[in-house]
């Protein structure tokens, strides 16, 4: 059986390759990394989450998901690299060590496996889930408009053929419902970080309203530090702010739902934009993108550790 060290982090991979690599990561780091299944996708694929934990029960936790929009391949690739980084840095990096000595991290690398497989097999530019829509020939729901947070509002569409179709009702998508059930069931998730591409942004609630959240100031300061530390690696400039202020009103998003559930530190990252490739970022950019994203992620995670609530 291959070691996780033989894996090429600088290449894009299929679902099977990534799921297989997750097994080797678990085997290489017993006592730190385990794999849990939180549900099944519409097409019956396992929804798998890596759990990084040094013990304890129901410790405060950080949730990270990548690739809920299947065509954003750099997100899943960054998720793979990040999982490996967390495992390798425990016991080496004081911040990661302190974090995992006190908190758990859950990382769902392929948040939309049906869509991801479809991008490899049939349509590289597929974004949504693959569930059928009653009365329409168009498949799929935008899983980042399907959350119960201003559901159906501005920035989402009621047309099943649209790439921002919100779905028939909140959490209609199994991929979304699985995360909802997991976070609610866990009961002690303190941060949700949802990773997308590509606009070079670090965003926080709200998206469904332009009203500032009660924690706006703290989130803004944290985002400012995170994007500054990200830029220090390769000079990549990110913008930051609330979703509604920075881009546009977008209802039904992951981080708004998380925030309204009481998860204060809810952020969404939009990874690197070269201005030349969009969703088709060449694999040569995976390592630089993941590397520069790491300090921003770590800033957020350490802030969560140091600011219990």
């Amino acid at each position, binding site marked *: 059986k291959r070691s996780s060290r033989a894996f090429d982090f600088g290449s*894009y991979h299929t679902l099977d390759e990534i799921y297989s690599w997750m097994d080797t990561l678990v085997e290489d780091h017993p006592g730190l990394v385990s794999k849990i299944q939180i549900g099944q996708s519409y097409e019956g694929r396992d929804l798998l989450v890596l759990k990084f934990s040094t013990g304890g029960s129901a410790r405060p936790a950080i949730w990270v998901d990548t690739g809920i929009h299947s065509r954003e391949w750099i997100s899943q690739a960054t998720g793979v690299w990040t999982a490996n980084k967390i495992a390798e840095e425990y016991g080496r990096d004081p911040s990661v060590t302190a974090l995992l000595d006190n908190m758990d991290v859950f990382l769902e690398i392929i948040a939309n496996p049906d869509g991801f497989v479809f991008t490899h*097999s049939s349509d590289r530019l597929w974004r949504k889930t693959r569930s059928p829509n009653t009365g329409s020939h168009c498949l799929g729901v935008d899983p980042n408009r399907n959350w119960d947070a201003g559901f159906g509002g501005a920035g989402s569409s009621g047309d099943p053929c649209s*790439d921002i179709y919100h779905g028939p009702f909140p959490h209609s998508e199994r991929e979304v419902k699985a995360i909802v059930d997991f976070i609610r069931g866990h009961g002690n998730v303190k941060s949700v970080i949802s990773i997308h591409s590509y606009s070079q942004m670090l965003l926080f609630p709200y998206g469904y309203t332009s009203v500032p959240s009660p924690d706006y100031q703290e989130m803004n300061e944290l985002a400012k530090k995170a994007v500054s530390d990200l830029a220090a690696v390769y000079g990549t400039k990110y913008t930051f702010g609330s979703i509604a202020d*920075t881009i546009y009103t977008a209802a039904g998003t992951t981080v708004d739902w998380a925030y309204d559930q009481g998860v204060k530190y809810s952020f969404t990252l939009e990874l690197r934009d070269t201005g*030349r490739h*969009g969703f088709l970022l*060449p694999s040569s950019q995976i390592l630089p993108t993941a590397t520069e994203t790491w300090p921003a992620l770590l800033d957020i995670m350490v802030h969560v550790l140091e600011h219990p609530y």
Partner: protein
Amino acid sequence: QRQFQGDQVLRIMARDEEQAALLKMLEEQEELQVDFWRHPFGPGHPADLRVPFPSLGAVKGFLESHSFPYTVMIEDVQELLDEEKEAMARSRRV
């Protein structure tokens, strides 16, 4: 497997709210099959549109008739996809 020969991605900068609203109208024209990679946030933010080859003339005509500044971000989407596929195959061989 779906092919994207000749599809282009255009990066468009709306000058004002009026132009941003005009761009949104493109999305509603289903026959053009325009795929917004990045939505028009508003003036000062680029919008990226993948335009299928058969719609290129109509979309570029629309942009030019409304004096939108735009650049071609990707000349041929399929070329990038072919390169991506080859890079994956190369990695597997290694």
